[in-house]
């Protein structure tokens, strides 16, 4: 199939960085800044992009995505803002408690799943709480492009209004802030009413807010394609599970944060792949026997193959249950 098969250089899409600043902003939110370890500029990114920060938490690897909030035109550093989540799985706590200036960390190349529609006649940003971060970069980009925008930003209290002062000072008239504790709320219907044709709305915040914006816009006759959202979901790892590789006669454990493919590779067994994204079909592997349920996440196998458990795509799919044997 391939012209010149190439193994990926493992980890090539990762960047080694040094923490260059840790700036507490308020009780809950701290900004972290990274510079490339080799002193060069970091890769250029587009507003709305995120990076996945790898944390080494006492032998456990944690991978959390954060929006890059710094100005895309300035690649001397990346900035992220992390809200401490005392109930979460611990990534944000680790960042707040353990990460210090000068620490070395690994982050991924920027990935953008929340990009600006550059055709838009006007951009309307709606942020809730820490959902402000992607808009910090978007605003910087819009200011440079000279495009029309406005921000509607809802925060709990003045004290927790991350970047409120900076934004209001720099962009009076474009930034509208709403304080929960003063019973202020975004008047969404009015806000959507009367926007020029070709306006795009972007929302980032809690799930309830995102659903509300989508539903309200839709009821006002807005096309779905003009409403964009990014939800703060945690990465979806899976429960650890065990697999027997028949051909190589090995039993391996797949950890919470690694893919089955990575676990196979870690055990020293050669496995084919190209995309590592469930699309190319290269890693297709026959199932010898199983007792349990597959979590298929690929776009390659068809519904029948998913249902009958004859094959699995180890780059993205997982398994829960008693036992799984693969022909590998």
């Amino acid at each position, binding site marked *: 199939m391939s*012209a010149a098969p190439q193994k990926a*250089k493992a980890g*090539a899409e990762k960047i080694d960085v040094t923490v260059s600043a840790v700036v507490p902003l308020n009780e809950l939110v701290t900004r972290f800044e990274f510079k490339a370890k080799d002193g060069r500029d970091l890769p250029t990114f587009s507003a709305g992009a995120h990076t996945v920060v790898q944390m080494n938490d006492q032998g456990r690897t944690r991978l959390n995505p954060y929006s890059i909030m710094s100005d895309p035109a300035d690649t001397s550093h990346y900035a992220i803002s992390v809200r401490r989540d005392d109930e979460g799985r611990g990534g944000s706590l680790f960042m707040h408690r353990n990460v210090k200036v000068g620490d070395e960390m690994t982050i991924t*190349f920027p990935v953008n799943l929340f990009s600006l*529609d550059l*055709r838009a006649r006007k951009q309307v940003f709606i942020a809730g709480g820490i959902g402000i971060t992607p808009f910090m970069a978007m605003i910087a980009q819009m200011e440079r492009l000279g495009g029309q925008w406005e921000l509607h930003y809802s925060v709990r209290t003045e004290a927790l209004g991350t970047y409120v002062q900076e934004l209001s000072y720099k962009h009076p008239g474009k930034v509208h802030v709403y304080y929960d504790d003063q019973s202020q709320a975004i008047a969404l219907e009015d806000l959507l009413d009367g926007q020029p044709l070709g306006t795009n709305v972007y929302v980032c915040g809690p799930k309830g807010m995102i659903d509300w914006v989508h539903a309200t816009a839709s009821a006002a006759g807005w096309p779905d394609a003009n409403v964009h959202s990014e939800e703060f979901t945690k990465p979806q790892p899976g429960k650890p599970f065990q697999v027997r590789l028949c051909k190589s006669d090995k039993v391996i454990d797949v950890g919470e944060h690694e893919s089955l493919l990575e676990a196979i590779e870690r055990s020293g067994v050669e496995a084919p792949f190209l*995309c590592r*994204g469930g*699309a*190319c079909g290269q890693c297709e592997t026959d199932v010898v026997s199983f007792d349990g349920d597959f979590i298929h996440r690929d776009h390659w196998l068809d519904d029948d193959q998913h249902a009958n458990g004859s094959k699995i795509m180890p780059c993205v799919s997982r398994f829960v249950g008693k036992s799984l044997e693969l022909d590998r």
Partner: protein
Amino acid sequence: MTIQFNEETFRDDYSFHNSDWAIKRFPFPFHEDSYMYAVNMEQHRGGPEGSVYEKRFDVDEHYVSEMRDRAMVLADDPLRCQSLPHMTLAGWDLLELIMVSKSEDYPDLFELHRNGNQWRWVNKPLGIDDTFTFLDETTLPYGPMEYITRQAQGDFCVLDQRDDMLWMDAGMVTTQADWSLDFDIGMNFFEWHAPVPLAHEMGIFKRALKFLLNIQQGAPARRLNWTMTVNPLLDTSPENYHKWGIQKTTLTPENIGAKQHLRVELQTFFRLPRSNALVFPIRCYLCSFQDLMTMPKWGRRLHRVVRDLPEELATYKGFIDNRPMMLDYLSQFDDGLPTSRGVWPDLDTEPALKKSS
């Protein structure tokens, strides 16, 4: 190695030719003795030394002449290069990608000196030494995409990514296998692929699109496609089909070895950082049948592939009428021996052609 650039033409007297070096590194696209559409994508992170896969943007002996041909096509028909207004930023992304890649990969041919947004670009083969302000269009003679793709072999489609879809919103297309940028601009991935037979039913485009949407910065990908062209004509455009179509009827058993070319496209995919657009460079390589036949394995294999290719594909690729004559010619180079797997010519290990008596 410094490249010796050919003095050659891709029209009129067709003085195009491949050196032994170029034949050996020709991206022969068939890894087995048959061919069918597939989601044949892999990572684009280098390849064997000297191969066309090694560098991000391959530069070869045809560079200077291809760029001259492109300039002629554009002079005749400026609509071959178009960019919708929202794609200018992606154009700058592409300019940066090509300048950085070429200056790093071919330091003897290209230089990029950056001081903030003041850039100096030196292109020695084309004799260009320009200073401009990055992201300021008024400092370049053309838009950023046109400027840089007048200096880069192969066609370029720049795709905007919106609503989980790719949109062909900009491009430089002068060496295409019979499709029109002017017609296709603004279309989405499924729309511009609509004329392709069989692949839709096979689900290929659905899967390919998912893959492309997920291509990430720093992790480019590539694939090969191929077709057939009579005479080494780069500009097989629909726009000019009423002029070049007739050339397909000039094949004879005597001239087919020299005139009939296998046309291979090395297609690569890069995520562009500022715009989040995707660029799709389509690099075209031509090789005459007679040059291909100098590699015994390729001779055997090409015969079998052409012979067994489904009719729909031979029709779509435009050589159904000439297929019998091609097979007459190619069968002389197929002695029935098995071929080794993979695309490489394996000259040292594959047996020479057994002459039938």
